Each structure stands twice: as C-alpha cells, then as structure tokens.
C-alpha cells in the first residue's frame, strides 16, 4: 500500500472507467462458467458426487435430520426391526373351530340352500356358553354363501305340556 498514494489510485480508477471487456465476453460468460464448474466437479470421486447430490436432494425436502448420519442410521435400523417384527408376528391362518361341535342327527334337507331346520324331536335346545370368535372373524370368505330363510321351524312343541 505504501507504493501507491491516493493520487495514483485515483488515476487507476479513472483508467478503469474506460476499460472494456473483449468482444463476446458476456455472450461466452455463462458457457465458460458452466465449463469450469464441470471441470471442478469432475475432479471429485464418483461416490462423493453421489453423496453430495443425495444430500442436496434431502435438503431440498427440508429433512435436516437426515443430514445427521447417526440419526439416519438409527432410523434405518428401527425401521428394519419393526418390519421384521411384524413379519414374525403375522397371525397364522384362522382355523374354523370344529371342536365341541355337537353332531346333529339332522337328515339331509331337500333344500340345503334354504333351511337348517329340523324337527325338535331330533335336537335338544340348549344354551351354550359365550363363544369368542373374534380371532377367526376375519376369515376370508369365498364363493356364494347360503342365504338363510328357514322353511320349517327349528323346533316344535309336540303336545300341550307346561
């Protein structure tokens, strides 16, 4: 700074006022900028480029927490653990409970789609304890069900007893 006094600096600034860029400078400026940027970029290894782009992508979604590598690793591990637990705890296919079912001595009905009924003489009307069938209630149903409307009563009174 000692080599230049204020007068010299003033002269230089005056000269700068008349300085002009070479012809085509502004037209080529953007192209030259991109070229130099690519050259700078290609000096880095490929993995670094991918990492930078992934980080930029994450930052574009404002996921700042993902920029923390320990947090990201933890999140991935937790997700993997949850998914594996759910796979192992998936319910077994529901089995239709056939045990404790009384064997009915009902003759085959002539209209099986229509009725379940049979004379009470062949059956005992009893009450059963509560049955929790929640577990198997999600059983997949397929095919056409039997649409119920009896054509004969499920029980009869044989005589006038009381």
């Amino acid at each position, binding site marked *: 700074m000692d080599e230049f006094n204020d007068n010299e600096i003033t002269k230089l600034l005056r000269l700068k006022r008349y300085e002009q860029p070479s012809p085509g400078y502004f037209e080529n400026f953007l192209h030259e900028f991109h070229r130099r940027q690519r050259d700078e970029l290609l000096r880095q290894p490929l993995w670094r480029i991918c990492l930078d782009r992934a980080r930029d992508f994450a930052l574009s979604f404002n996921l700042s927490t993902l920029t923390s590598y320990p947090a990201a690793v933890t999140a991935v591990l937790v997700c993997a653990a949850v998914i594996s637990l759910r796979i192992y705890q998936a319910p077994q296919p529901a089995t239709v409970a056939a045990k404790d079912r009384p064997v009915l001595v009902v003759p085959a009905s002539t209209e099986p789609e229509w009725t379940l*009924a049979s004379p009470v003489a062949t059956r005992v009307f009893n009450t059963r304890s509560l049955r929790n069938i929640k577990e198997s209630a*999600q059983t997949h149903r397929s095919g056409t069900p039997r649409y119920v409307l009896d054509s004969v009563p499920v029980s009869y009174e044989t*005589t006038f007893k*009381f």
Partner: protein
Amino acid sequence: MRRLSSSSSGQGFRLLAKLAFLAAAASLSAQQTPESATSLSREVKDVFERCAKAVVKIEATDQHGELSGTGFFVDPTGTLYTAYSVGGEAENVTVEFKGKKYPARQLLADLRSGIAMLKVDLASPALPIGNSDQLEIATPVVAIGYPLDLAETPSFGMIAGFDRKCFGGYFPTKHLRVNLPPQRGEGGAPLLNFNGEVVGILLYSFENNSCYALPIEAAEKIRSDFVRFGEPRHGWIGANVAEASAPVEGSRAVTKDIVKDTPAAESGMKPGDVVLQIGRTKVHEPEDILDASFFLTAGDVVPITVMRGSEKLTFSVQADFHPASQPRPQLLAAPPLSNRAMPLNLQSAPERTP
C-alpha cells in the same frame, strides 16, 4: 308500432299463464288420483329410512359352509337379534354395519324360540321395541332384510293371522303369519309396524308370499332371561293338557296327567283340573297353554287357577327347568308358599261356582 308490440306481448303472456295453469291443474289431478298409494309408499319409505340403519347383514360359517342372513340392533351397545339358523350354530360371525365388517360373538342361541342374540363391540343405533298384541288382521307391516347378496331391502305386507299350529306341529308360542314376500337371506329380519317399532322377527317362509315371525314379546322374554340369569330359562311345571269335551268356566283345557315329582304334582294339581289361568294368561283352549308355557321362567313362582269340580283353586307353583333345557342348574330353595295348593281365599271357604 309500440302499441302493437305491447299488445302482442301481453297476449303471449296471457297464453303462457293459461298453459301454466292447465299444466298445474293436470299435475294436481294426476297426483290426487293415487293419493292412497303414495301415502302408503311414503309410510313404508319413512319406516325404511328410519330403521334400515339398525338392520345389518350377518355372515358366518357353519358345518354346511358359509351363510348369510339378517339381524337388527336392539340396544345402543351392539346387541342384536337374529334367527337361530343364522347365528345359533355358526362360527366366524361378522356383522356388516355402515359398510364395514365387525366380528360378533354369540350371547345366546335358543332353539325353542328360534332366535339367537349376538353382540358387536360398537355403539349402534337400536330399533324400538313395539307391542305385537296391538296387531290385528290386515295391520300393515314392513320387513327390512338383506336378500341374497343385495343391499337392505324393504318388503311391505300385512298381518294375515296369529297361528300356533303349522307344518303339522305346534309353535312354542303364537306366531305372526305375515303376507309379504320373503326372500332368502332375510331370516332374522325385523318386522316393523308403521311407527318403526319391532313387532316380530322373521323366521320362516311359508309358501311363496307368506312368512312367519316370532312376536317380539317372545324374543324379549328370552332376552330378559339372559339379563337375569345369563341364559334362557324355559319353565315347566309338569302337567299335560288335553281338550275337554265341554267347556268349564270358558275353558276346554283339562289336565290329562300330572308328571310325578314335578312342581305341578308337589303343588297339589290333579288330573281333571280345568286350567283357567296361568300367570296373566287366560286359558280357553288347550292351545292357549303354549303361550302360557312359553312365558314361564324356571325358578319363578306362577299362580295357576284351575277348576276342580265346582271349586276354583289357585296354586302358586315354582316352575322348574323345561325337560329339554340343558344345562339344568340347581334352583334356589322355593319360597315357603310355593308348590302348595292354596285356595283362592285362604281365610274363607274355597270359591264355588254357581
């Protein structure tokens, strides 16, 4: 020119007014002609719109395979009635409500009445309980059910009779014969009066356009038993009744025999007693016994009035479990006055008929 234009526009307006008047008159006359029909359909539509939300489709599996029927909520906690054939012996019961399927569990299944009660764990709408005793022949009724794989459907009909005997046997209690066309899948559907109250449960088809419904009082008796004891408790006192050759005090129901070691025998009832009244049910014919018997509850004491010769006697009898009921838990000790003959007026001579 302006006057001419004004005159022509006025004529056009009058013409339009006349046409509008004629159209309105024609429309009114067209509406008035089937007034009764539209009123009826409006009633049915009103009942349907009010009640259909409490009617559900029930799907289940039983030993024959998959089945589909109808049920309806009777309280806001998800308790519903259906037919025994739908929910009585089924597993994997699901209830379709508001487009979603919910698992249901069986509360009770009563073969004698032909109904089952299920429970779904949700807050539900509920149909109000009506009174089937107010029904008369030709009273209009509406059933709402799920025929086949279709959506909820109203069916309109009328009460055709009150039967105790059909299909060569006897119903356990009076049933409502309804002239409406039932369809498969509507077993367990509610039978509603025009107030939107349940008066019966559709159970059996009968010929093509008729069906039988259990009166709602019978279903409520079963529900009452369930609330009190956790199970249906059909009562029985051990008397067989036949038809007398001549009426006595308006009754033809005479006890044919008394089963040994039963409440009837212990109370002092004898063969030959003409039954006049059981509880609040007056007996005129042997078939009236069915109604009275159905509403007996094991463990309850019921007054039974009979004519023995010229004497009118009232017995307080504690009903036992119906022989067909299982299991048969031990009843509590009978009250001191139960199962003993008790003249109508204990402090005076037995009442005698003139």
